[in-house]
């Protein structure tokens, strides 16, 4: 009988060993899968037992900190955002009810000390063995709160966005979107956020328009067209064009921007540079026809179009700029698939983010080299000391230094005596380009201004986009906001 008992004992041991294996599967193999499940409330709550790292602005001002509460013998570190809506769409939120967004989401691992970096793993394991509270790493952003506040104030009530980049490094100095929201309301008063009102049909306060708002770029895209025209050697700034007030495409006239009276402007015999200065559509329409859509898009890609900007915010909060067809990025294979004339002055099916346009301006100011924008300056250990600091990274050359210099001169003319005079700053050379993109509703435009300064020694690039502007141009409404930001940022020594 004993040999049979042995068989049963082996069966019993196999059953119990299966339990050890099963536990190993869920705790060592599938735990990541479980942790990422949407309905895993334990995971969300458990993270509140960690003393989450704070998030700071460039000057050290705290944007996100913890409120310590004790419930039933548990200590929870719940998030509080002392500056409220300031930079909310970048910082995001960390809540129990609606999970996380923004930097709070993208850097959750670092903020909760669950990143795989050796130092962090060691300290948090030791802490947990000692029964101490695990402390997260803190994060310092590149945002400058003074100008950020000015930008949000200027945008208040409207729908739009403003982005400012430090040209040599790619640091994001300002990233404002409007309407924004108060992250302190997300947990318990989300309905108030949902009711936010602003001067557009879909206010969507949780949408970071700077990185995920897709707008027709209008005439600001002429910078890309001009870059392609000059850099490819097909045209020079002095190439001459005759402007009868329209350009002919597919046998039909494409008119210039309509003045308030509904009459298209006519400029007659002009140069390519003057076409930019006065934003003459027919000139760029003809350049587009000559270059072909694929050539223009090739240059657009060099500036970063067709790829997400690679900012540190969650990928889901960023969109790539480019041609969109039925909500999806459209990759034309042949010139005939795209209307080159309308593409050249930024209409067609272009959807462009304010961050992308700021990158275009920054690249021109940077002598043609595109720099990776970044918003996280550094990650700091709980006890102080830098865990990792972001190093500026170039993405490649979009245009030659000569093309960049020619474009800069042309953009200076836009501000000194063209469509962008509202951006003039006494004593500072500003290079800019206006845009007034038509929308599906006649008379309602998206107003743009992209610029950089000082033009002779570029430091700051700015892009401003305003939605839903009735009969207002980029030069009238967007350029003054860009000017305010430039002035504020140029005063700061660190920027």
């Amino acid at each position, binding site marked *: *009988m004993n040999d*049979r008992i042995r068989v*049963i*004992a082996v069966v019993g041991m196999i059953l119990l060993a299966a339990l050890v294996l099963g536990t190993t599967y869920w*705790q*060592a193999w599938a735990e990541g899968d479980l942790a990422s499940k949407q*309905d895993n409330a*334990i995971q969300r709550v458990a993270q509140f037992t960690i003393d989450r790292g704070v998030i700071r602005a460039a000057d050290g001002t705290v944007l996100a900190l913890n409120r310590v509460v004790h419930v039933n*013998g548990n200590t929870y570190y719940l998030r509080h955002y002392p500056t409220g809506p300031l930079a909310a769409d970048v910082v995001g939120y960390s809540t129990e009810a609606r999970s996380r967004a923004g930097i709070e989401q993208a850097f959750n691992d670092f903020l909760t000390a669950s990143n795989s970096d050796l130092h962090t793993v060691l300290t948090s394991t030791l802490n947990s063995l000692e029964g101490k509270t695990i402390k997260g790493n803190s994060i310092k952003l590149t945002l400058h709160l003074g100008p950020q506040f000015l930008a949000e104030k200027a945008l208040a009530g409207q729908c739009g966005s403003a982005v400012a980049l430090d040209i040599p490094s790619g640091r994001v100095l300002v990233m404002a979107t409007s309407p924004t929201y108060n992250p302190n309301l997300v947990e318990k008063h989300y309905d108030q956020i949902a009711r936010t009102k602003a001067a557009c049909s879909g206010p969507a306060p949780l949408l970071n328009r700077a990185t995920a708002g897709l707008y027709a770029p209008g005439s600001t895209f002429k910078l890309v067209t001009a870059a392609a025209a000059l850099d490819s050697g097909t045209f020079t700034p002095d190439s001459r064009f005759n402007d009868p007030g329209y350009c002919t495409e597919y046998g039909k006239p494409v008119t210039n921007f309509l003045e308030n009276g509904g009459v298209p402007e006519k400029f007659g015999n002009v140069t390519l540079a003057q076409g930019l200065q006065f934003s003459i559509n027919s000139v760029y329409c003809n350049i587009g026809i000559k270059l072909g859509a694929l050539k223009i898009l090739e240059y657009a890609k060099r500036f970063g179009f067709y790829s997400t900007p690679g900012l540190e915010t969650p990928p889901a909060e960023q969109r790539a700029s480019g041609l969109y067809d039925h909500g999806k990025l459209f990759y034309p294979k042949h010139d005939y698939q795209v209307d080159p004339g309308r593409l050249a002055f930024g209409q067609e099916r272009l959807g462009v983010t304010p961050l992308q346009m700021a990158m275009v301006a920054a690249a021109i100011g940077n002598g043609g080299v595109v720099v990776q924008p970044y918003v996280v300056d550094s990650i700091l250990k709980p006890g102080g000391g830098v865990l990792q600091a972001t190093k500026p990274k170039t993405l490649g050359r979009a245009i030659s230094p000569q093309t960049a210099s020619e474009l800069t001169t042309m953009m200076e003319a836009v501000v000194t005596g063209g469509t962008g005079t509202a951006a003039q700053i006494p004593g500072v050379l500003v290079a800019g380009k206006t845009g007034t993109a038509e929308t599906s509703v006649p008379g309602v435009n998206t107003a743009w201004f992209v610029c950089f300064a000082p033009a002779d020694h570029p430091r700051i690039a700015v892009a401003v986009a305003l939605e839903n502007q009735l009969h207002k141009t980029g030069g009238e409404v967007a350029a003054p906001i860009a000017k305010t930001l430039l002035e504020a940022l140029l005063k700061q020594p660190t920027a």
Partner: protein
Amino acid sequence: MSYRNRELASLVVVGLMTGFGFASVYIARQDVVSASSLSYGIFFLCLYLAAHAVTRLTVPNADPYILPLGGLLTAIGVTEIYRINPQDALHQTIWIVIGVVAFALTLFLFRRDYRKLESYKYLCGLGAVGLLMLPALPVIGERINGARLWIHFGGFQIQPGEFAKILLIVFLAGYLREKREVLAQGRLKDLGPLLLIWGAAMLVLLETSDLGSALLYFGIFLAMTYVATGSKKYPIGGGVLFLLGSFAAYHLVGRVRERVTIWLHPWTNHFVYCSQTGKVNHLRQDCDSYQLVKSLYSIGNGHFGGTGFGKGTFTDTAGNPLIPYLKTDFIFSALAQELGLIGVAAFLLVYMVFALRGFRIGMIAEDGFSKLLAVGLTFGFVLQTFIIVGGVLRIIPLTGITLPFVSYGGSSIVANFVVLAGLLLVSDRAQARNA
């Protein structure tokens, strides 16, 4: 060292570990737990010493390790229950005291010769069936969490199945010892009892809508039949019959089908039928498989090292529970979160060592009845552990039965202490000859 001195030394270690466990919960949860919790360690040490005094008197030659192992499991269980809700731990402690009393009574009652039970085997068999039928009776029977397993008895909830299991094992040990030669021949007419028991197990399944108990009874039956007859036909044939029965139950019993569906597809990304609302309006993880999924999240949150006793996440930040039936069906998920993989592996190792001691008792026992009794009790213990923990770990469909010695619940605790006493009695008799 003599058997009993080894037992005493081990029990002192278990008592100390219990003290550490409660101290750890106290340190982690000082806000809600009073320092008096530390007296639990002393209380359990005293309780174990009392149990030890009984074994010294009644079964001096019995196995020295299974009482400390059972005591350790009981202590782990009550510590975790204490961490979840101190009030429940008090109730559980009262039940443990009753369990130790039942343990002592069993030892005193059968210290001369437990084998006299063999002559009462049919009475035991009838008793088992009677107990199993109790929850189906009106008035006293009660359906909790969908299964009809409980009876009400003056303010107490009792799960007669826990005791029916022991009586069934006693019956089988006596019956199989008597009929083993006949059964070994495997003639069709001798298969009668097998089919009868199979039918009874299936009836229990249908009556209580409880796949787990049916699997438990039937598994014990097959293992004991195999040990008695040495014929592989029984476990194989029985296994096939059980599968056929389960297949039929899957198609005939809605609740069984629901359990299997939850097991196979706990997560959906589209709305499915929800048995609570009766409509197709929930993701399965938000409705039918809610319990299983929340428990898996709890296990996953334990990782390698666990959160530590008292530091697991069982409630949301407002204090509402996140895992249902935590102290009963899902006590393993609570332990897995707080002890982590390392702790759970050690915890399961305790079950393994307990089982190995049990099987060893079966091997050294001299007569067939004793062998079958020890194997039946031990395998029942193992299989019950496998069914509940395997269900929680999604190895098999989840059915709510208790985790021996650990889950919150009086019947289970008392029954397991009786099992423990039974194993001690068998081992005492076997080793007394050699001593």
